[in-house]
């Protein structure tokens, strides 16, 4: 018991552990324990520059205001655009990373992006397909019932919420869309 000075449940001996566990204790030596620490002697990283060459013109690249300058290298995957881009721009330009407002605006930008992209997809040759894109077609081949039931899975306690959260916005959008169309129809 910890009420006394000794460890209540001593571990097996090193010999017992070495016999049972491949590689047991191989990294006990200090030289094998240095790779997570903040050390200056990391050796040759492969960098042959003091400051990397600049990637190119920034073309209005957004950045955290906690940066003193635009760093020399960045990703160019999906530039800011449209309404979601404007929301994200406000988040980056006005708020430091300490502010929850910044992150909540970015989450809002994500949701606006998702809705507008879905609306645009309806006008494209390949509209979003909520069936295939969720991967739900994998269900029949991957033991949907025996994977879930009778196994004490804790996530089943909230799983009933998930379809509401996933399908809910689609239903809400459809309802609001139909209402808007009706109003337009009445005016016409």
């Amino acid at each position, binding site marked *: 018991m910890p009420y006394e000075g000794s460890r209540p449940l001593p571990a097996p001996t090193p010999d017992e552990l070495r016999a049972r566990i491949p590689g047991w204790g191989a990294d006990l030596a200090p030289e094998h324990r240095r790779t997570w620490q903040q050390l200056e002697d990391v050796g040759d990283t492969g960098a042959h520059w003091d400051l*990397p060459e600049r990637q190119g013109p920034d073309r209005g690249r957004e950045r955290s205001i*906690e940066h003193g300058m635009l760093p020399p290298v960045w990703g160019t995957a999906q530039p800011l655009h449209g309404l979601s881009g404007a929301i994200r721009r406000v988040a980056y330009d006005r708020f430091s990373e300490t502010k929850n407002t910044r992150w909540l605006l970015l989450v809002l930008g994500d949701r606006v992006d998702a809705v507008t992209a879905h609306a645009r997809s309806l006008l494209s040759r390949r509209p979003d397909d909520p069936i295939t894109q969720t991967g739900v077609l994998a269900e029949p081949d991957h033991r949907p019932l025996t994977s879930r039931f009778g196994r004490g899975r804790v996530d089943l306690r909230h799983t009933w919420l998930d379809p509401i959260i996933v399908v809910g916005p689609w239903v809400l959008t459809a309802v609001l869309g139909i209402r808007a169309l009706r109003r337009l129809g009445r005016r016409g």
Partner: protein
Amino acid sequence: MKAMTYRGPYKIRVEEKPDPTIQHPNDAIVRVTRAAVCGSDLHLFHGMMPDTRIGHTFGHEIVGVVEEVGPSVETLRPGDRVMVPFNIYCGSCYFCRHGLFSNCHNVNPNATAVGGIYGYSHSTGGYDGGQAERVRVPFADVGPSVIPEWLTSEDALLLTDAFSTGYFGAQQGDIAEGDTVAVFGAGPVGLAAARSAWFLGAGRVIVVDHLDYRLEKARSFAFAETMHLHESGDIVLAMKKATGYLGADVVIDAVGAEADGSVMQHVTGAKLKLQGGSPVALNWAIDSARKGGTVSILGAYGPLVTSVRLGDIVNKGLTVRGNQAPVKRQWPRLLEHIQAGHLRPSELLTHRFPLEHIAEAYHVFSSKLDDCIKPLIVVGEE
């Protein structure tokens, strides 16, 4: 090229996208042969990571073949078979010089707390990821390494994140010989952390999860004692009893933002995004540690505030450490372990999907179907 693309929460598909191009003299273009889906990709898939933009390609566990290099690349040549760490980093800034590759200051304009990560939203720099036929690899002389001939691509793939991160988590725990190490979460990273704890001299390793098949893997792959979250009742109390009421010397949180176990915290954190994720596993870790012990955090959390038991951290005198793993620092030693026959990381792979069926891979992994521990995405020929 074909690439997985994000279409909104819970929605992805494979699209034709333009091939990536050299944008910096030290860039390389890698033709991806194998990729994996990481547990943290699921946070993106579920819409949890701020600034995940429509059209983004996920994937930060990548191996492939170099197809093209920029003019300043000195160490890689087209045709090299390479493994790519999930961190994008310059190798020369203040943080890289201190070994904090995951905190590089030169690659992520969007935030200062974290460096660049492939396919992990614009919060980590806005780089497209490797669940695609090709990927842009910045700082080709710094990040990727040629895969040794004796190492299979599948073993190499697990070193690009999951196993290296697990090993890093055990290192962060600063395990002393004979310590009792508790690991919350028996996903790929938790299993890797549990297995690695033995290398550092752990005396006992206890793994907690709510899925039988993952606990079975914890016993067979990580040689660990196991506790079923559902059957143990109050998991902190069970952990105290299992350790003679001392608590574990080291506790590793390998769960992160989408922890199950508390419906309220799951809904406020994982679903409604009112917290930086569900803090339930982290709080269990804090409460399961012995006084004066260490909590090592590997689980990914969002940037919003999270209701963490700070009072317990102070009152118990805990040391709490967390970071994204600086993956490449772990490689030399892990390669020695593999060569010595101490482990085969690819034993964590349970399912294989072609890139065209990646939506199914996400669903099976996310819904924990068919005893899936780690899905591999077969992208191109080796």
